[in-house]
């Protein structure tokens, strides 16, 4: 029985090295928040500037649902 839920979990730019190997199917336990998984992979919180959940900017306290897509960015700009 597969009682694990999964999310897509991507880290970008200078945080790319923290992206887990199982980024396409990253397991989460019920009730986990964006902040929980970010800490779990060891991302340095002071370098995390923008967190997207399903393309919307999210707070660290946002609860994750199975199938969510999370993207973590440092402060970037260009244009």
């Amino acid at each position, binding site marked *: 029985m597969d009682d694990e839920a999964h999310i897509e979990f991507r880290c*970008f730019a200078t945080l790319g090295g923290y992206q887990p190997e199982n980024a396409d199917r990253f397991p989460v336990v019920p009730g986990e928040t964006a902040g929980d998984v970010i800490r779990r992979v060891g991302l340095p919180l002071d370098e995390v500037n*923008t967190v997207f959940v399903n*393309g919307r900017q999210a707070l660290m306290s946002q609860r994750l649902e199975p199938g969510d897509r999370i993207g973590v*960015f440092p*402060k*970037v*700009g*260009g*244009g």
Partner: protein
Amino acid sequence: MDKIIRINTRDRTHRVENLSDMGFLGGRALTSRIIAKEVPPDAHPLSSANKLVFAPGLLCGTTAPNSGRISVGGKSPLTHGIKESNAGGTVALALARLGIAAVVLEDKPDEDADWCALRISADGVEFHDAGELAGKTTYNCVEPVHKAFGEKNAWAVIGPGGETCRQASTIQFTDPSGRPTRSAGRGGLGAVMGSKKVKALVVDPSGGERVKAEDVDAFKTSTKRWAAMLKEHPVTSGGLPSYGTAVLINIINEAGALPTKNFRDGRFDKAPNISGEKMAEIIEKRGGKTREGCHPGCVIQCSQMYMDEKGEYLTSGFEYETLWALGANTTIDNLDDLAVMDRTCDEFGLDTIEMGNTLAVAMEAGIIPWGDGKAAIGLLRRVGDPSDPLGRIVGNGARFLGDAYGIDRVAVVKNQSLPAYDPRSTKGIGVTYCTSTQGADHTAGYAICQNVLNVGGHVDPLSKEGQVELSKNLQVATASIDSCGFCLFVAFAVLDNEDGVQTMADLVGARFGRSFSSDDFVALGVSTLKDEQDFNERAGFTKAHDQLPRFFSTEPLPPHNTTWDFTAEEMQGAKV
């Protein structure tokens, strides 16, 4: 820096005027003032009544970091409104050292007149025959320009695009390595230069002087603070130098705002293939350079040298906008193909944003298949053949090609193609596209900072709330930044530092030994925009022109399924 050099391209004479008769102006403030005052608003952009103005910003030539940008102004052949197209490169510094605030190209010679190259030095202005340069691509001008004028000049040149007066043509400026890679890209000003039969503008700074601040101590103090601000901010010190502007591909894609397949989707499934991270990986593998400045005195270093598979130089200034326009918007995801397309645009002197949108329209029309990089390169190269009718049509931009082929899906405002952010999911930038005097332009009021990047605060990109005011404030600040000669990317640091605007104002005050407050800094932007709006109104633009094409209001954009829901009336709040 008080001289205005007026060059008559018909009788090949010039005269020198004093800037102070016009007011305290530089860069965009000066180009827009000259155009608004002197060009009849109903003039055809390619007629003798139009003028082409090159003006370094107020702080060009000083030791203040990132203050070496040039403004080029004229009535745009693309939008038929006023145009300020901004570029890096070395010409701004060279003009500043010669004490020149602006070079104004006036009148035009007969159709069958010979091409000329203008040389400006401490000794004055010379007209040289440019028969040998005519028809050459910009890169192929390097050797003959060096042979004729020496290797230590700064110069601007048009390619076959400008020579044949294409509406998407650029003016290319030499970068610090001497290559003509930096573009005054938008609005077709290369065609204005071409209409005046000027192939190149060569500036020899050798007899000039270093620019000195009037108040040396105050200038030194402000420069120190300014440099620290740029060197400490994570965007200007980390993301931009490491990945270039292409660092945006992934974050704009993640936000659901990366226009894909001619604005059908906000996400491109192959975005990682054209990202800044991927580009940096390839550059490092092939022995290129990930960091390079576009002008002397740049501490951000967001340009690069991109090499081909054999390790030979291919292109630089390989920007996010270029990768998006030629890539995601056409669904081409091969970075090497995109680099060849970028190089081709620089060679022919074509705006990469306009060309990307034009290629997407060519794909709509079935001229070439979606996502086919080789076919796109082939079509672009046809622009270089003046006898090729399709090449001529493509070189005139997205709307012109759309009209020629009966395509109704063309993403333009005031005839200028949209840049790399879908306005349905980043509504602040949509307000800028609609209301900028320049046509659809992202740099004119870069609300992506607050909509997506969390620089200078946060404004929900999907909501209408706060967007009009945000865009207006940014448009004013940008006009000031462009007038000072600052690189727009200083704004990332300025927006996150309380003393950012004050420091810029202090630099201007100390440079010229006059009182210049942060209010004066803002007022400079407001008066510049007023000049531009006034010209456009007299040229026939109304509020009905301040709107996106209708499909943005009727087609929801995945993944957020939002539409553009502002009226043209609501847009008027973003005007000064």
